[in-house]
């Protein structure tokens, strides 16, 4: 069996009780007195549609390591930090507690596990401090940022996060969902879960535009961004338009020195889940011609989410070498795994 990296497996504490050992007296009291509970992590886990994310190592290993194509490495993404509240001090405290919980409950129990650093999504300063706090632990491989944000992540106010990440040898994982309590799409408030679910794809596109337009990769040439659980079939048409517009208005962004698509190809990976693809093999073949699938995609099961079996259709079309890049090589190179 070829080696494989699963770039997106979820874990989540089942309640704040699990985080209490990692929170100060003040925050334990704050949570208890206010009656704060962990909710659906900004809707990533609708109760009847997605099973809860594993809350313990035994639960995780049973599902993830006993799978037929057993991954050699797994990157854990805990979305519990994708909150609705706006208290920056609480946000920072919860992020630290989650990272400590992930370390003790999961990373300490298997050398095949890696994890994303959860950081405050309301305060870049606190995100930087948290990155510095966990930087010495090489099992953290990337900083986890939600696609739903108040300010696009490429904005200059967020650059200290990338500087800290690179100093710590970390990359960035941009994950579906995020801040709730505001319009989740660029067109307004949604009325169905289906729109929320789909809506991660348009806003991921907006984030891709932001990283390039703001010159993030000129400032941080070694930074890689792994866009997770946001699809990828939209990428080629987006870049066709991005390049075209840049040719017309490049004066506005003089730090964008090359065609936008070149930055995207060098700096972004996209996870394979969800693979929402055409059933028609001819259209699938065209898609492979339109985008560099082996250089762009990286495998993720997205456990416990289930997005259908689009991935197997796609993998069947790839050569063995290309399949190995998607399943192993791309992630191994970005995260420094061997």
């Amino acid at each position, binding site marked *: 069996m070829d080696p494989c990296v699963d770039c997106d497996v979820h874990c989540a504490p089942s309640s704040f009780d699990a985080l209490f050992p990692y929170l100060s007296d003040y925050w334990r009291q704050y949570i208890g007195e206010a009656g704060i509970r962990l909710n659906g992590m900004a809707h990533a886990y609708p109760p009847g549609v997605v099973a809860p994310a594993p809350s313990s190592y035994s639960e995780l290993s049973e599902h993830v390591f006993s799978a037929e194509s057993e991954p050699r490495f797994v990157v854990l993404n805990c979305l519990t930090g994708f909150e609705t509240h706006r208290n920056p001090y609480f946000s920072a405290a919860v992020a630290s507690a989650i990272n400590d919980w992930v370390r003790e409950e999961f990373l300490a129990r298997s050398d095949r596990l890696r994890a994303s650093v959860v950081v405050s999504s309301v305060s870049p300063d606190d995100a930087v401090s948290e990155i510095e706090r966990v930087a010495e632990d090489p099992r953290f491989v990337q900083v986890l940022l939600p696609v739903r944000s108040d300010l696009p992540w490429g904005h200059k106010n967020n650059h200290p996060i990338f500087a800290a990440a690179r100093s710590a040898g970390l990359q960035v994982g941009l994950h579906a969902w995020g801040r709730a309590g505001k319009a989740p*799409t*660029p067109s*307004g*408030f949604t009325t169905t879960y289906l729109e929320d679910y789909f809506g991660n794809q348009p*806003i991921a596109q907006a984030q891709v535009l*932001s990283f390039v337009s703001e010159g993030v990769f000129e400032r941080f040439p070694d930074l890689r961004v792994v866009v997770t659980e946001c699809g990828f079939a*939209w990428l080629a048409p*987006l870049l066709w338009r991005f390049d075209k517009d840049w040719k017309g208005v490049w004066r506005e962004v003089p730090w964008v020195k090359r065609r936008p698509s070149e930055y995207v190809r060098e700096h972004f990976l996209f996870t394979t889940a969800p693979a929402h693809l055409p059933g028609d093999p001819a*259209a699938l073949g065209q898609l492979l011609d339109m985008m560099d699938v082996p250089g762009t995609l990286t495998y993720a099961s997205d456990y416990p989410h289930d997005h259908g079996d*689009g991935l197997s259709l796609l993998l069947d079309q790839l050569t063995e070498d290309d399949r190995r890049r998607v399943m192993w090589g791309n992630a191994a190179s970005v995260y420094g795994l061997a």
Partner: protein
Amino acid sequence: MSSSQVETRIGVSSGPLRSVELVDCDVHAQATEAMLAKYLSPSARRLLERYGRRTPRVTEWYPRARHSGMRVDAWPGKPGHIWGSDPELMREQLLDEFDVDYAVLEVLSGQDCYDHPDFAAEWNSAVNDWQVDSWFSFDRRLRGTIAVPHEYPSLAVAEIERRAGDDRFVAVLLPASAAEQLGHPKYWPIYEAATAHGRPVAFHTGGYVDHRGAGYPSFYLDYHVGNGIVMQSQLASMVAGGMFESIPGLRVVLTECGVAWAAALRWSLDAAWEGMGDDVPRLTRKPSEYIDEHVWFTTQPIEEPDDPQHLLYAIGQARLGDRLVFATDYPHWDFDSPKQALPRAFGPELRRAIMCENALSLYGLPRERAV
């Protein structure tokens, strides 16, 4: 119907006829405030003069890189005129230059949603009066779209009914971004009225800019590319909200938002519906089937892959061969020339469909026009 409307009905003409070959579905006539003010009631005019339009235009949020985002040669240089306000210059640079058979005006002056309903109703009505007086009567090739106070659907419906007898208004115009998502039932009465009067609804890029799932972009570049992203969200809202199921004859024209993203959106919505159809019980069919039946796209600013064949793939994957209508976007900076915009790879049949046939069917325009 008034006598002036009878005189201007399409098809009432004599003399030589020409077979229609080119329809431009997105042309921006732009009125100055003074041009519209004369149509306002004294109280609305006083409000305009004393308090102004209050809110910044989107061009102030995201300044265009050069020349206010316009073709530099389209500046009329006449007192009291701005880009797109001079019919003579448009005739010279667009209608005559390219032998355009019909040009559909989309006047964006009423696309905000910050006005009091009384003012919004008058302002949009003024836009429509101005189209009739300054444009339709200037050149018989010109058609228009009905500007409506879209945030106040009952007033919008009244405006549609007021204009419905004039066939030169070929569609109802809404922005691509509004206070609510455009699939919201709030707006359905507008869609029902348009459909009842045989008009498609054209959603044009722009409008309200205050929804930002990922936050505000910093630049015109990511804002402008992002217009395609906004329309993706809107199309998901239209499908999931059920308006195509509930208003069977409704036709929508997604304008100036790109086209090549449509295939990926269809695959994704269909996949989501397979797994979560019970979240949208109003839908009885796959999302892509509603899109096939109800949705048209204008070309400009069409995506430009390095390999033009890829654009053909994208059009085929989204089944857009009979759903794409040509647009120049005159007088904006990213104007698409009818002579150059479509890649040669498209071939004569698809080219003719896009340049002419699809729009003739969409808007019910005659295949021949008086010369």
